[in-house]
């Protein structure tokens, strides 16, 4: 089992969601994140223009069976791409164990994404 965590543009979220659906990945979590970095957004407050210092992105987190890893990663890489600086990052890590709380099953069968 692998965990895929991707930091993507908020504007690309709908595209990524659709690409994941198309790849058969229908269960995942996401949340809004704020980070720091080079491509900070410009902000205007009462006529003053300045670099806000913050970057707003969305984090998508999915745990998949090993066989689904490649198509999930490809779906995100293609759908979140614009070619401009700031497209984001994708991390893959190992998951040691998974449990389904209701039935107490464990292992890959406990995952939603078949």
């Amino acid at each position: 089992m692998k965990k895929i965590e991707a930091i993507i543009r908020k504007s690309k979220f709908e595209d990524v969601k659709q690409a994941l659906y198309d790849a058969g990945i229908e269960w995942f979590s996401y949340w809004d994140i704020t980070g720091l970095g080079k491509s900070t957004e410009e902000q205007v407050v009462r006529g003053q223009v300045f670099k806000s210092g913050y970057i707003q992105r969305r984090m998508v987190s999915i745990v998949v069976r090993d066989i689904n890893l490649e198509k999930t990663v490809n779906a995100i890489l293609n759908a979140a791409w614009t070619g401009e600086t700031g497209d984001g990052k994708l991390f893959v890590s190992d998951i040691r164990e998974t449990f389904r709380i209701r039935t107490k099953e464990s292992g890959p069968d406990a995952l939603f994404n078949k």
Partner: protein
Amino acid sequence: MKKYLVSLAGLLTVFNSNLAAQNISTTIKTIPKIDTGDTSWMIVAIAFVLLMSIPGLALFYGGLVRRKNVLNVFMQIFILVSVITLEWVTFGYSNTFGTNSIEALKPYIGGFNWAFLNNINISDLSPYFVSHSQPATDGHLIGTIPHIVFIMFQCMFAIITPALIIGAFAERINFKGFLIFSILWAVLIYNPVAHWVWSNDGWLNKLGTLDFAGGIVVHINAGIAAIVTAIMLGKRRDYKGHAIPAHDITYVAMGAGLLWVGWFGFNAGSGLAADGLAGNALLVTHVAGATAALTWALLEWIIDKRPTVVGISTGAIGGLATITPAAGYVGIGGALALGLTASLICFAMVAYIKPKLGYDDSLDAFGVHGIGGIIGSILTGVLATPLIQSAYSGSLYGNIHQLWVQLLAVGVTIIYSGIGTFILFKITEKLIGVRASDTHEAAGLDETQHGETAYTNFD
């Protein structure tokens, strides 16, 4: 029963006039009456002006600060509403609009004759009036609304003035220091200045200063106190020479909207009557607010590429502050001129001059209210037209003297409010401290001053 009373009053009138007829003059004395139309409008106007403080100003300022300080701003305004109301009815009103028993002090501060609203009955008519007046039984002129209604109308002005200063020191003041300073300021700065300009005994009033609804008394007064406290308190720990973005711009827009609506009571109520003058005040207030809001949005659109919600809200408030002293003296042309000038100058002040000077006026209480008040109060001396109130005209209509009077009143208020604020701030600082500790400021004043947080994860 009512008919009997009326005929009795009629008899008395006839009797009185018979007496008067024995003298050569044949003036018919009538018993002064409350005008119900004027009174109903004034009671509504009072509610409108309270709406400006809570929730109008609370939302406007609360939205502009960061989320860790929003409740602190709400609390500051709520407690001022409570405390200043009590100050006002105990001695504030008397100090401001009462008569001093010491002759030499009369032009400078009121007395204690109306302390605890002593000797004021519900049937008493207001000794203050603008356009509607009538002779009292002793012959001098009085207003057409109950005295207590006038007291409450003025109470709302006494509340909102110290509340405006909050914008200057928001996000870094400790609550106790804020409260003590604000009370001292209300008693020793607001009350005397309001006495000078609005009381029948006031020396600036006697000089002929024009301040219809508080450009000098409210906006310059609070605006100058704002810049003095902003400088004395120092910058916020995170201030980097540019505005810290608002945490909730929907609050800002809602607050600005409520302030705009409330301003109809503020300005159109200041004629103390429901008449054409009130209608004109409402018209010019709305037009100046709209002009200034649009001008600010266009400036941002042209210079910064996009019009912003914080910008259009700020512009509206600037324009409304600017028209305030002029609302009873200018027509629609004056309103357009004031609205346009307000946004051009306030925008330059906030966007270019403030960052160069380097002080941290958190929410631009000086840049918007102070500057707006100064522009409006001076230009009232230029744009006042006899078409609105025939007794008053500005230099554009041949009365250059009015401009000098306005400049003097503005200058005196700036000096008094500036020096007075400095002294009161120093006293509060020595006695109990004003600046919040660095750890409190970093953690946010909601948590550290009040033990509450605005946006929780609780279901």
